[in-house]
């Protein structure tokens, strides 16, 4: 069966142990979590979890039903890329060799990354965008000397009228 990326967005009680209950559902059903982002909403007692997983078409039904059974889960929805806004932020730590310096600077300019830290031979870039853009940047910079990266994973909200 064809596998594709699914984005699940849920509201949960902001309490200790809730994340392990949520992630346990994925593990027990044999799905790997590709990315995961958790933070408080405007109500500090409720957090939003946005996560992505690559799976077949049974995934959403199976997972959503099980997640809905958890006492601490308030809402579960799958977000479709066509009808939602998705973003992810990436920090890229890159070693700056003298001979590659010009090329790195050109890339920063071309992709519209922000430079958040710069020393003589190391810088940390910030880039925000959809996954596709992030991956293009990473692929471009990789041969130029990426030392470390940290990605937030996708966060997303549905479009509304």
């Amino acid at each position: 069966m064809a596998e594709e990326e699914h984005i699940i967005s849920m509201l949960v009680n902001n309490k200790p142990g809730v994340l392990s209950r949520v992630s346990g559902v994925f593990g027990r059903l044999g799905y790997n979590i590709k990315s995961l982002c958790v933070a408080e909403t405007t109500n500090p007692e409720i957090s939003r979890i946005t996560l992505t997983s690559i799976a077949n078409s049974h995934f959403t039904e199976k997972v959503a039903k099980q997640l809905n059974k958890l006492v601490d889960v308030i809402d579960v929805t799958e977000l479709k890329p066509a009808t939602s806004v998705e973003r992810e932020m990436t920090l890229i730590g890159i070693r700056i060799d003298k001979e590659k310096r010009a090329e790195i600077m050109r890339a920063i300019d071309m992709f519209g990354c922000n430079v958040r830290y710069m020393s003589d031979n190391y810088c940390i870039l910030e880039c925000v965008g959809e996954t596709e853009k992030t991956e293009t940047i990473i692929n471009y910079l990789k041969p130029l000397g990426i030392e470390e990266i940290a990605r937030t994973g996708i966060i997303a909200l549905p479009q509304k009228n």
Partner: protein
Amino acid sequence: MKKSGAEILLEALSDSGVDTIFGYPGANTLPIHDGLRSGPIRHYLMRHEQAAAHAADGYARATGKVGVCLATSGPGATNLVTGIATAYMDSSPIIALTGQVTTTLLGSDAFQETDIIGITLPITKHSFLVRDVRDMKSTIQEAFKLTTCSRPGPVLVDLPRNVLASSCPAGEERTYQSTPKVSNGIGDKDDQLHKIARALNQAERPVIIIGGGVKLSNACREITDLIEKGRIPFVNTMMGVGSVHAANGYNLGFIGTHGFELSNRVVHQADFILAIGTRFSDRSTSNVDAFAPLATIAQIDIDPTSVGKNIKTDLPLIGDIRKTLKKLIPLVETPDRIEWLSRIKKEQETTEKRNCYKGCGEPGRFIGMVQEAMPEETTAVTDVGLNQIWAVRSWLPKTPRSLLTSGGMGTMGFSVPAAIGAKIGVPEREVVAFSGDGGFFMNIQELATISYYNIPVKIIVFNNSHLGMIRQIQDLFYDSRLSSCELGNHADIVAIAKGFGLQAERVAVEKPEEGIDKMAASKGPFLLEVMVDPENYVYPIIPPGRSNMEMIFGRSD
């Protein structure tokens, strides 16, 4: 007026209707045991925490009320795990109370500390760690709500010792904060109900599959009404057995890997199946791809995860079974169904000839004799293995909560402690536990509990000196290469029972009359050891991975 956490706990339990706790003390639960001395709740000191969990489960299954077990932190809590998992698989409402180390020591690998909430995450409906005495009352109330609501199941409450010991001034108790769930997307039930009714009325060969959910929803009267009004033949899953009086003319028996030939054959021929309160577990369907190939399948269940979980359902309806059936019955017509019913009748005649004593041999005859000798309202509790299949096939339950068995988890050692819970829950009913020699030894220590409290349960131990079902499977499907299935006959079970203070007798399964009479006449706890030929298997049986139609009737097949 200040009350301690333990006092608040016991009061909240009492207010929720708890009269009995099955437990075992340890350092971290002593504040509770201190409080139990003066309170209205009876505490039964079991001889192992696993048995406390099974007893609470047996109590819940027999009464329909919530069963409560109590264990200390660390090993006490981990010993509950098998019992909690057993209750979880069969949707039995129990509350497991566990002691925990003082909150400041949590996570420090303190003496007898274990993360029991982490350990039990996949086998509880929910769990709570009470970190503040002000939350004690509301947490217990919430635990009771959760264990019985929707699909019942175990809830664990972890109780640190300092929270039990600290006091809470009156009026400072906090309410439980919860945010209501957003709609879970269940569609229009009435529309679906009409579709199911139409499909049922138009079906030529309908069959109802009754699962354990029917009893849990207290829908036994409604299901009987539906069956009789619609003249619909029905089969049970193992957990569904007993929902309808066994002698009901539409009863075809239980289905699946160890089920009856007739029920499996009829389901295979059905053109419409109405499955109620069952998840189509692999034990019921065997090879799911070949299950009921001709049938349109409708499914009613309160738990959305059970619908479409193991089998694709054409007409799913998520809702309370009792309420749904009440609405469905008026929509159901009463056709004559002559063709279908007479076809089943013919099947019945052929299959009965082939399956003497319901395919159980002498033990089947014996169980019939036991039921005959015991009062009408006797509860049977089974263990797991051949004894379970013999009992579920041969015991004919006349009321819903009179056959208790570990269906989903298949827990050996269940019968004796669950029988204790069932007897304490409904003291006016006789309780007979059916066990094999394997499962009996797994919780044999509970004979001490039975003896100490003089709990008048009857225990039947089928002794074939083997793990009978393992032996049967190895005999049939491993070319008779027997391995690790012989228990031998070195222990004198009758002498052991007498040593614990029980009356006990030994009989051969072919000549059990005298033993049965003595057991039925005894007032106190009684053990009857029944010697059975190790090759007395159950037939038919379905080989692993095969369909319900690929039944085997003997070694030569």
